[in-house]
């Protein structure tokens, strides 16, 4: 097997340069794993031919689950027999991506016994990704992972592994406990995460403040973004310190305020909080002087996604402000009503954002029993084609449907 090791001049080029090299990582793994060695060979072939050499496998998985394993087969298994199977395993990361060295070593032990030794820390959705194993290893990996306290993440038409920002663990801007909510929803929806029962995927992402470090507004079907209702907390002396140390408060802070709700008289910063849009800019650049208010909670938004199928969407407001407190019934109730409706009426591969576009936000809100509020729209409709639902008929006193 060793003598068939491919020559890889193109990939060798990517061992050079300042940024850490993924080729070096594959070569390191290849010292122990024939699978990693053949991956290198097949990738060099792709670099020569400018085309990928993988086939999608839609059936492999662990017994009982419909998610967590992505099947892959080489389309050149004769040349690279060790990557004939090269399945991915998604492992649900701990909230906030915190680890101990011991936990990481346990994961490495399992993966060196059963796979290529290559990983992504982490995948885009947030899972730990184990890259490359064969079908007979799937059950042993799963069993060893669960013994070590880990479980698989989502894939397919299910709840995808929820992910969250670092939150109150290390951030003064966290307006709610993102880790606690991510963990709670993950545990509460284990069945929905492992056994696909939806028209398509459903992603939760929790960001503790409007900086949105996990990009929830761009890629979560349900984006839960921390905010506050009262006034920005200000330490006036600390503001002056920033000014004394050379910050131009007018041009850097006041002029950048999207709401134009602040003023600087050379000594004191004034904020008209009733107009503040909670954008975070002033807080971001003066973290020692300004902080989010004390009456904290979150905005719940729905519907973002990448382009496939009907075009990319950003999430839009569903609940302008809620307090985020265990057991999070308010969020769970509305989400479960949404799932019921979507499972009933949604089309195959239709994300919730596309579903809302198709049926109309107004109808959607009515069906999930949420009152429309002005915070849900950038502006009211511009076109006059209104679907009025009731009208009067002559000689009838009551409105008729």
């Amino acid at each position, binding site marked *: 097997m060793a003598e068939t090791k491919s020559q890889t001049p193109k990939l060798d080029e990517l061992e050079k340069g300042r*940024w*850490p090299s993924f080729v070096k990582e594959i070569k390191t793994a290849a010292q122990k794993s024939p699978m990693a060695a053949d991956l290198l060979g097949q990738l060099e072939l792709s*670099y020569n031919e400018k085309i990928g050499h*993988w086939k999608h496998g839609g059936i492999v998985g662990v017994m009982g*689950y419909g998610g967590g394993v992505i099947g892959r087969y080489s389309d050149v298994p004769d040349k690279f027999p060790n990557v004939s199977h090269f399945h991915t395993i998604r492992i649900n990361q701990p909230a906030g991506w915190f*680890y101990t*060295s011991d936990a990481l070593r346990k994961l490495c032990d399992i993966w*060196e016994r059963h796979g290529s030794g290559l*990983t992504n820390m982490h995948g885009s959705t947030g899972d730990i990704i184990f890259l490359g194993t064969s079908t007979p290893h799937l059950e042993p990996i799963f069993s060893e992972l669960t013994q070590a306290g880990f479980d698989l993440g989502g894939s397919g038409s299910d709840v995808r592994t929820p992910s969250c920002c670092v939150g109150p663990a290390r951030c003064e801007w966290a307006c709610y406990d993102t880790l606690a909510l991510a963990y709670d929803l993950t545990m509460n929806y284990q069945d929905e995460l492992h056994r696909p029962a939806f028209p398509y995927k459903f992603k939760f992402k929790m960001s503790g403040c409007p900086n949105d470090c996990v990009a929830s507004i761009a890629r979560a079907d349900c984006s839960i973004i921390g905010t506050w209702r009262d006034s920005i907390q200000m330490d006036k002396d600390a503001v002056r310190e920033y000014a004394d140390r050379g910050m131009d408060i007018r041009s850097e802070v006041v002029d950048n305020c999207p709401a134009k709700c602040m003023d600087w008289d050379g000594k004191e910063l004034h904020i008209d909080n009733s107009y503040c849009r909670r954008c975070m800019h002033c807080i971001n650049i003066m973290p020692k002087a300004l902080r989010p208010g004390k009456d904290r909670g979150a905005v719940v938004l729905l519907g973002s996604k990448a*382009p496939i199928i009907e075009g990319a969407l950003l999430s839009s407001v569903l609940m302008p402000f809620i307090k985020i407190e265990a057991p999070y019934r308010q969020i769970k109730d509305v989400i479960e009503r949404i799932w019921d409706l979507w499972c009933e009426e949604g089309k195959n591969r239709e994300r919730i954002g596309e579903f809302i576009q198709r049926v109309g936000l107004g109808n959607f809100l009515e069906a999930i029993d949420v009152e429309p509020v002005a915070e849900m729209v950038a502006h009211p409709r511009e076109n006059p084609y209104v679907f009025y639902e009731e009208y009067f008929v002559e000689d009838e006193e009551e409105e008729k449907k």
Partner: protein
Amino acid sequence: MPEAMQERLTDIGPPHYEKFLPPVIKQNYGKWKYHEVLKPGVMVHVSETGAKLFTVRAGSPRLVSTDKIRKYAELADKYCDGFLRFTSRHNVEFLLTKQENIDPLIKDLKALGHPVGGLQNSISSIVHTQGWIHCHSAATDASGIVKAVMDELADYFETMVLPGKLRIALACCLNMCGAVHCSDIAILGIHRRPPKIDHDNLHKTCEIPSVSASCPTAAIRPATVGGKPSVEVIEERCMFCANCYTVCPSMKLNDPLNDGVSIWVGGKVSNARHEPMFSKLAIPFLPNNPPRWPEVTDAVKNLVELWAKNARKYERMGEWIERIGWPRFFKMAGIEFRKEHIDDFKHAGLTFKRSTHLNY
């Protein structure tokens, strides 16, 4: 079989995060008062209690071997009592309570080949997908372009000299695993040739009605080809989304002659100042030219440097372009404006210039 099922642990979920939090975090959870960036890649969080937590952030290729993870673990043991975390952009962060450990840790990280930085006004690691390493629908490689681009931009990771944050992301096809569509610069793999249909096998592996239904422009219809039930594609209607290929492996779009990369600019997800925005098309096509994709690295570097030279402090790529206007952006960037730049999907009209706010 039933007995075996009994013994299996299922639905246990991830380990509880509290097990992995260092004592300084447990004691100061939710009590952090402010933070300061001390130097590139190093910040301190200060608690109401006065406790301090130092973070050292290092870049990573995202694709890491177990050997590398073990090295991270060793460093965490040596400097941080075994505690570390990862970020949403694939960086690794070491969590220290002893300030004197910062510089030795940085030295060790650099010896390991991992740059320290990515905070504040810098370019953080590139969020990206699998590419030819693992994906069946990739129109380009991911790791290779990311490596080549970051080799050029590593200075901007290790310093904080840019006007504001710059977020680059790469997706190897339109499925866009990751938030590529809201990045300052997005590198997107694209197909440009309609699917090559495997008429011999399509009826065996795919349901014809599902294949037809998968097309957002209704370009696919049932047909009998060579006596076998199959489909045909109205080529003028194909926009190369590959949704049919996702549903049916006999509709292959991968094509070495026509696959390549497009470049998108001006997106953001943060609410700071301007609301979140989608990225917009800057360069419709660049060729796949492995191993270093020089056309792509040059284009990205040009855009970064143009923005760095001209944007105001804190202005993100999209905010800068919105201020100067797209015509000027195209002129300054030396990019020819073409038919492909004009949207022709749903709601395209909303992207037309509907005012006389123009400069000359």
